[in-house]
């Protein structure tokens, strides 16, 4: 398995606060890795660094383009997204006043061309392109059982469904790597179990690398092949689920006695 993402000595300082300190990690192709840690450990900040939402204070981020690992430190968010990064957000960030379908279509923006002249003059080829991407979007929505809500406004969906839509939107970008920030937050155990199945399914179907943050241990321990634990910005531990579950420092800092 080849390394797709490599992080070296990454650091982020906000004012006086070091949110991420000297983090190094690697993700391999088709891996499903979890990132856990106490509140305020810097998990979301790490996501923001990797996806270019904020610039790092120090350290390097490399991503595999073709056969080489290239630094993406100085790239803008949208350029990084174009390389094949997709993500969801801790506080859902859907395009609320747009339909479910449009949410997905926006994510596909860079996969089709539709020049200004062509769309304004409505050449037949315009409709052909629209047809094509519409079909793609619909197929994708169908996997998540969302095609029936296609023309609903995103804001009118129940919370759990919104979280699912955010994942679909990420997948619509045809990413190589997908970052999920607390996908199960606010879901009850049954919904969480559904989500767990879904994530596994898409990871296998689309062959993408997934890095997810989650506080729900049933999901993490079920899904993750490897786990990184962050505490106060630093890597506290890494390993397989069972290793992590029995790690004293992780129990002390994060899991608590019951696990």
């Amino acid at each position: 398995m080849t390394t797709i993402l490599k992080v070296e000595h990454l650091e982020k300082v906000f004012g006086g606060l070091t949110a991420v300190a000297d983090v190094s990690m690697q993700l391999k192709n088709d891996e499903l890795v979890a990132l856990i840690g106490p509140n305020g450990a810097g998990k979301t900040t790490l996501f923001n660094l990797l996806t270019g939402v904020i610039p790092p204070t120090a350290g390097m981020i490399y991503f595999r383009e073709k056969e080489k690992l290239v630094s993406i430190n100085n790239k803008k968010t949208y350029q990084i997204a174009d390389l094949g990064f997709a993500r969801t957000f801790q506080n859902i960030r859907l395009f609320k006043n747009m339909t479910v379908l449009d949410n997905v279509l926006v994510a596909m923006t860079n996969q089709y061309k539709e020049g200004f002249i062509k769309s304004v003059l409505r050449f037949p080829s315009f409709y052909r392109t629209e047809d094509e991407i519409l079909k793609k979007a619909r197929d994708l929505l169908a996997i998540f059982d969302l095609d029936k809500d296609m023309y609903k406004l995103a804001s009118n969906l129940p919370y759990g469904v919104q979280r699912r839509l955010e994942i679909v939107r990420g997948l619509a970008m045809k990413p190589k790597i997908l970052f999920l920030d607390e996908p199960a937050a606010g879901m009850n155990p049954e919904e969480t179990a559904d989500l767990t199945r879904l994530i596994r399914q898409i990871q296998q179907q689309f062959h993408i690398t997934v890095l997810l943050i989650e506080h729900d241990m049933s999901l993490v321990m079920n899904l993750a092949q490897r786990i990184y634990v962050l505490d106060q910005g630093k890597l506290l531990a890494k390993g397989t689920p069972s290793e992590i579950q029995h790690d004293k420092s992780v129990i002390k800092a994060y899991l608590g006695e019951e696990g």
Partner: protein
Amino acid sequence: MQTFFQQLINGLSLGSIYALLALGYTMVYGIIKLINFAHGDIYMLGAFWGYYVINVWHFNFLLALLSAMVICGICGVVIEYLAYRPLRHSPRITALITAIGVSFFLENGMAYLFGSNARDFPQVVKQVNYDIGGVRISNIQLEILITSCILMLILQLIIKRTKMGRAMRAVSVDNDAAELVGVNLNRTISFTFALGSAMAGAAGVMIGLYYNSIDPLMGLTPGIKAFVAAVVGGIGSVPGASLGGFLIGLLETLVQSVGLSAYKDAVVYVVLIVILLIRPMGIFGKNVKEKV
């Protein structure tokens, strides 16, 4: 050198007028994020009130000033109640349009009732010019300058030190949460309007006295300038509004003194844009970064 100091005085006294108006703007904006377009017109109402009570009821200056503050405060509350409160949960741009509507209403209503010509403000306070080494300043200029500084301090104290001030700050960040700790939303917002409008009323009387000329459209230009001042200073910030006001006053004076009076406003706007590009939230504005 003498010219320089004279221009400095000119700039400061012009700036103090903008600052006086900007304070009211910034308060209202700070709390409900509404560009209260009608603020300049409340100032006009204050001037007209002063005009009438002095001419007809022969009020003295202080009485005219205080009564104008009371009347304008009441006007502000009534306007808020009728035109803005029903839109509390509507998009902000809707409230902006009603604010514009209120502004049109006040300007044209006053023009209808009293005619649109300029009229002279009764000179209840005799203007005295002091000459300090060839630099002139009048008692009224001083008065305005001092008043705007004092009002700024009082406002800052109200906001930082009083219970109402804390309520105002709470409302300005989160309505629901403010109510949940027991803040009376409507009362707090009414209070803010009363305060801001009372200050505009005071400004109306003082500026009426200073320039000796009032008309129904007098609030328009200074209103926009004051808003620009509030933005430059960081809208929502009391010291920012004052600073912005003085900055614009000094800038206009500078531009005119070098002979570019035709481009006076253009220069102000260029500086505004440049400042916003460097500090997108104004000089004292808090840069509330969204946490992703």
